[in-house]
């Protein structure tokens, strides 16, 4: 079938069909909790018709943790403008491929090894990188020319039964 004709809508029920075309969401923005929220809402609006709510929810959570980390900790307060972020999310057959780069400070990537705070101590923070590490697969992080680059895949199925 040649593209260009009207395509039938994907079934509203049942399993989500694999994307027939590459679906990409990309944005550049100044990192702040307000812009992070706005971009994530745009992302869910854009990708919602193409992926399952569960997959989208996991991607939104992982990206919220990463982007808010950049917004809140990416720049020493008073040391210039907040970091500039580039986000791209691609709907792939195996899940959502996410990449984020920013010109903020060094990310505390060692926290990715964290086993997470002990719930019994009622911790109020420290969950962000733990959640990212749990939700993401094939995570890579590197820093080049004063920019952080983080890329990962949110797999179609959760990595562990949960």
């Amino acid at each position: 079938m040649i593209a260009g004709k009207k395509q039938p809508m994907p079934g509203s029920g049942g399993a989500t069909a694999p994307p027939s075309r590459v679906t990409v969401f990309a944005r550049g923005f100044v990192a702040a909790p307000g812009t992070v929220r706005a971009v994530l809402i745009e992302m869910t609006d854009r990708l919602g018709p193409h992926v399952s709510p569960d997959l989208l929810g996991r991607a939104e959570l992982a990206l919220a943790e990463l982007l808010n980390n950049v917004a809140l900790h990416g720049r020493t307060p008073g040391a210039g403008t907040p970091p500039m972020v580039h986000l791209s999310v691609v709907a792939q057959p195996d899940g959502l491929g996410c990449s984020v780069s920013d010109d903020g400070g060094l990310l505390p990537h060692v926290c990715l090894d964290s086993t997470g705070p002990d719930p019994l101590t009622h911790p109020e923070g420290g969950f962000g990188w733990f959640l990212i590490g749990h939700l993401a697969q094939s995570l890579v992080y590197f820093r080049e020319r004063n920019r952080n680059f983080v890329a990962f895949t949110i797999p179609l199925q959760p990595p562990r039964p949960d």
Partner: protein
Amino acid sequence: MDARRQNDGAKMNVTVQDESGRMVVRMAERRLDALIAGEFKDTVRPHVAGKGPDLVLDLAAVEFLDSSGLGAVIALKKALPEGRRMLLRGLTPNVERVFRLTRMDQVFDIIRGEDGSGA
């Protein structure tokens, strides 16, 4: 409905209501995230910190919660005086996931199935 009162001052949509002797705090915003976690905590804390009946935090309207929002809910639980309980109700799938992955579901009393909400 008589005991229902809208939170004054703050723009945040939070209601406090008496329900069969329990105080129900209903978060009516769709997102409890880093943008409003602090404001949410400050808005609800006065209702939590004093002595009173057991408290139900109803999150049925919340479609998205991140670790900042989770931190706010934990802070509210810690603000409870001795002997007062806080229960959670109406966790949507995205919210329930955060509690489960962080194992905070083992620490909170979570009401499931009431009002037909929750997984």
